[in-house]
């Protein structure tokens, strides 16, 4: 019997499998397909203060072993999420939930996190800093260590919940950003968000994504994600949620070997709605083949 349980700081998960933000909505669509209680957790759709309509169509393009999305954080806004989604989540899932939070100013991040702090089922606040800072000419918070640290501090000041900063891969040195977040008090890190990418329609000679660029995810980015998880594991002592291109139980193990304590699965759910269920089912067998009795022992085992 393989022990699949893992810890993210003080939060215990029955297994390391977590559907990633933006690919699992607030759980509704998948709850019609399988019992969500098999999951370690799930990370809900990035939620902002105001409702957001997102970007114009088209928002999706295909790439080799991956996809671009420019959904643009479409979500009903934090108050609607607390009013309508949180009670529904309590019905369809009984484990710890990861609340993904977006924001366009320090204040918005802090307010959103404050509002979520009293919700019992929210076990972790996952702060997506791949958002443009409206007060700094749209510069992405996650691309600058100072801005990343500021968001971390702003959020930590208003909540007792564990705060995991979700890092963007579109940086020269992700370990530097990770360290800045760690020094500012983050309880953990989640990486990677999507890589900036673009496709052009040969017929119209215009970008395929109306918003011009989109976020690249899927198996194509897996080696980049593994490398960044490795780098961050070497740089900071915080628990890491590994994410990016994971689509099999083997990938989960590889991500953990690189340093992840748990693993998020994004685009794979869109291609195969049962992806996470299959991964949960496959994990014990893969661990047995690898001679691993406690999956948590894989975390960082490729280092040193």
């Amino acid at each position: 019997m393989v022990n699949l349980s893992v810890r993210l700081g003080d939060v215990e998960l029955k297994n390391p499998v977590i559907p990633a933000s933006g690919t699992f909505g607030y759980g509704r669509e998948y709850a019609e397909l399988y019992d969500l209680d098999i999951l370690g957790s799930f990370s809900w759709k990035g939620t902002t203060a105001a409702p957001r309509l997102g970007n114009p169509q088209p928002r999706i393009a295909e790439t080799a072993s991956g996809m671009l999305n420019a959904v643009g954080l479409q979500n009903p806004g934090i108050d609607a999420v607390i009013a309508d989604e949180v009670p529904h989540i309590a019905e369809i899932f009984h484990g710890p939930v990861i609340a993904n939070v977006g924001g366009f100013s320090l204040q918005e991040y802090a307010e959103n996190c404050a509002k979520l702090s009293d919700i019992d089922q929210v076990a972790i606040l996952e702060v997506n800093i791949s958002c443009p800072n409206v007060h700094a000419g749209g510069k992405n918070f996650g691309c600058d260590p100072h801005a990343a640290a500021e968001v971390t501090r702003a959020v930590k000041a208003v909540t007792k919940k564990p705060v995991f900063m979700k890092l963007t891969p579109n940086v020269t040195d992700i370990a530097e950003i990770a360290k800045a977040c760690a020094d500012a008090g983050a309880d953990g890190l989640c990486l990677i968000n999507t890589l900036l990418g673009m496709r052009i329609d040969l017929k119209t000679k215009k970008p395929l994504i109306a918003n011009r660029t989109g976020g690249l995810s899927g198996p194509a980015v897996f080696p980049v994600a593994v490398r960044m998880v490795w780098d961050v594991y070497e740089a900071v002592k915080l628990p890491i949620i590994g994410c990016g291109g994971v689509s099999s139980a083997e990938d989960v193990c590889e991500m953990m070997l690189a340093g992840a304590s748990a693993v998020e699965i994004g685009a794979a759910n869109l291609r195969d709605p049962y992806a996470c269920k299959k991964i949960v089912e496959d994990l014990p067998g893969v661990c047995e083949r690898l001679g691993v009795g406690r999956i948590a022992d894989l975390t960082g085992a490729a280092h040193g």
Partner: protein
Amino acid sequence: MKQSLFTLEHARQLTADTYELVLSGDTSAVTAPGQFVNIQLPGKFLRRPISICNWTEDALLLLVRVVGEGTHDLVRCVPGTELDVLSGLGNGFDLTLGGAHPILLGGGIGIAPLYGLAQRMLEAGITPTVGLGFRSGKDAFYLEEFSKLGCRLLVATEDGSLGTRGFVTDLAKNVPECDYAFVCGPTPMLKAVHGLGQLTGGQFSFEARMGCGFGACMGCSVPTTNGYKRVCKDGPILYKEEIVW
């Protein structure tokens, strides 16, 4: 929605770029004409959404126009090929809302979902007029199939090589008594039909690039007068009064 394996039974070429496919498998998730399937293809990351042209208990009829690599690979599958399919996606047409004599308007490959719709209307005692538009006579397909159903069939081609010269809007104008339309085709056609003064109501089938096809990613959302709707889950059928261009 259901994920299951379908087996390609046959593929028949209809025009230079259009094919008819029959897939056998469990169609229990299909509940209404106008729904679609989302098909996984080897080597492609995203699935390909295709309207259900018609269905029986154990088979799907699809009409596919080759526009890129995915549709190219799909129509070239050999009989016996197994395909991973999400079936019964989307809301589908509500055939009870169009009165006794609605008009069904399809352009190009957009005629596909109208076929199953027409058949079910006839079964329900509704007698639709069907107007089909093509670029030219050589691009036309499924005329006999629609005729055999026993519905009134009008055809328009842009070059006039078959039927009326013009667009499906011209066909509709010739039957001004039809004031409710079921429509599927390219966006400019949807828009033109939507603008027809004679219509008091209608159901329009939309397309969008999809991430998932089952409502999870917001990749396909479009604005409507009822807020944003997901083409894949809240659509692909949108109602005349809620459509925003």
